[in-house]
């Protein structure tokens, strides 16, 4: 019994330590962010941010678009198969439009970015730790948070919401394609209905979620990189851990945000 309590206590302390570390790192990043901004910050840091944006955003565009098109198509088909029974197939348009802008667009994007860029962040920083590059930065009087993390975080904050918007568009277009082939609904009418259904609130809540997901992915993945101890095998473990933890936390955060928006923004 004492052993069980000891293990539970130790695990709780470890989890608290992790949450504390993420928050402290986030705070340090926010304080360093000014250096990564254009015009007011350091121009090399801003250049690094732009490079990261291209890697996180532009390079992920085909993957995110394809994921969104497939999911939009699946959602429209599954929705239609049930709604058709009640003669309410026109509600399929609302299902796809609202489902994507509020939920699936940001979530799919976050999962794609977590797998693609989160793992890359952890591997890059972990390797820098193993090869003493982080120590090298410190002894050159450069802060690794400012030098390495701030550009990545700024890039995530810009690229993830942009990708989410593109994901929304792709998913909704896939829904339109399905409606055209299954019910011969004209694309113009579909677009008209989509615009009528979508509220500004849906887009804003989706973007708020995207910003939260970007924060989770950048902070958790980079922390996993900074926590690397030992050799190259440790880098591999941290990469896996970064993807698992950030994906898990993105889904937890999604449910929390959805609950908050559901209970506070209902008409």
């Amino acid at each position: 019994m004492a052993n069980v309590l000891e293990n539970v206590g130790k695990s709780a302390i470890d989890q608290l330590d992790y949450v504390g570390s993420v928050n402290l790192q986030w705070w340090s990043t926010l304080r360093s962010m000014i250096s990564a901004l254009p015009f007011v910050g350091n121009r090399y840091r801003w250049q690094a941010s732009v490079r990261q944006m291209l890697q996180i955003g532009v390079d992920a565009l085909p993957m995110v678009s394809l994921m969104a098109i497939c999911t939009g198509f699946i959602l429209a088909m599954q929705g239609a198969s049930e709604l058709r029974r009640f003669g309410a197939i026109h509600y399929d348009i609302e299902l796809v439009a609202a489902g994507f802008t509020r939920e699936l667009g940001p979530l799919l994007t976050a999962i794609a970015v977590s797998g693609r860029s989160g793992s890359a962040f952890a591997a890059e920083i972990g390797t820098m730790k193993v090869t003493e590059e982080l120590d090298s930065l410190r002894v050159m009087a450069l802060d690794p948070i400012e030098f390495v993390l701030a550009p990545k975080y700024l890039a995530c904050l810009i690229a993830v919401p942009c990708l989410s918007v593109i994901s929304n568009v792709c998913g909704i277009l896939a829904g339109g394609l399905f409606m055209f082939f299954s019910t011969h609904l004209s694309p113009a009418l579909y677009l008209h209905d989509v615009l009528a259904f979508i509220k500004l609130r849906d887009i804003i809540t989706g973007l708020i979620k995207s910003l939260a997901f970007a924060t989770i992915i950048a902070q958790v993945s980079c922390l996993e990189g900074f926590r690397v101890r030992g050799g190259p095998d440790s880098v591999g473990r941290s990469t896996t851990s970064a993807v698992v933890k950030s994906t898990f936390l993105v889904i937890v955060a999604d449910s929390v945000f959805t609950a908050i928006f559901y209970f506070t923004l209902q008409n």
Partner: protein
Amino acid sequence: MSIISIRDLVVEYDGHRVLDGLSLDIEHGETMVLLGGSGSGKSTLLRQILGLERPKSGSVFVKGVDIARCSAAELKKVRRSLGVAFQSAALFNSLSVEDNVALTLREHTRLAPSVIELMVWMKLAVVGLAEFGKLHPQELSGGMKKRAAVARALALDPEILVLDEPSAGLDPIVAAELDELIVLLKEVFEVTVIVVTHELPSAFRIADRISMLYKGKFRAVGSKEEIRTSQDPRVRQFLDRVPDNIAQAGTVTAYFEKYLQAEET
């Protein structure tokens, strides 16, 4: 006043004492070699001097500042007077050699890009890499990487140059070239040089004084001649390359006899 002063330094990892009450003064302009076998604590001592870790007790004063207890701003200021070349060179693979050397100049000075370019070329020329600035670290040989790391360490004209195992893993000719480079740098730039190594020929070529570490304590500190003629058994063992008796013949025989008996039954 000594440029680096270490007082009663104690470092422990998980209760295991790695450095045990070290005290040492390094004078301005001298080359101090920290000599010792693997696991003797020399890299740990170096990390303490660089302020990368905090000691359990004791102090490390660099230019009069206790770097274990000073503010982050003071630590940054002290670190600007340090030039460090790590054992693995620790060059940034995403940057070219030129950009690696230019990094601190761009970050810590307001020099015009053309001046930075000239300074980078000069530092690379000093280490014999003027033609290789455009290459990336992964395109360099081991010896070139180490020299590039030295060029980067020299970028801000530091008062203290710290080199961690500069000749480790290099062939004797390249290692000798690096030794000559260190001697030249000390003469030209009048810097204080701290070198961590376990390579005896290098140590005796470049050192003004040598500190010999053994199990976290200084076994001997003195000039090259004092170390060379030391009668301390551990120093002699290190200098004469006498191995420890790791595997006793009797123990090995007894183990195999026991193993064979177990197999028979």
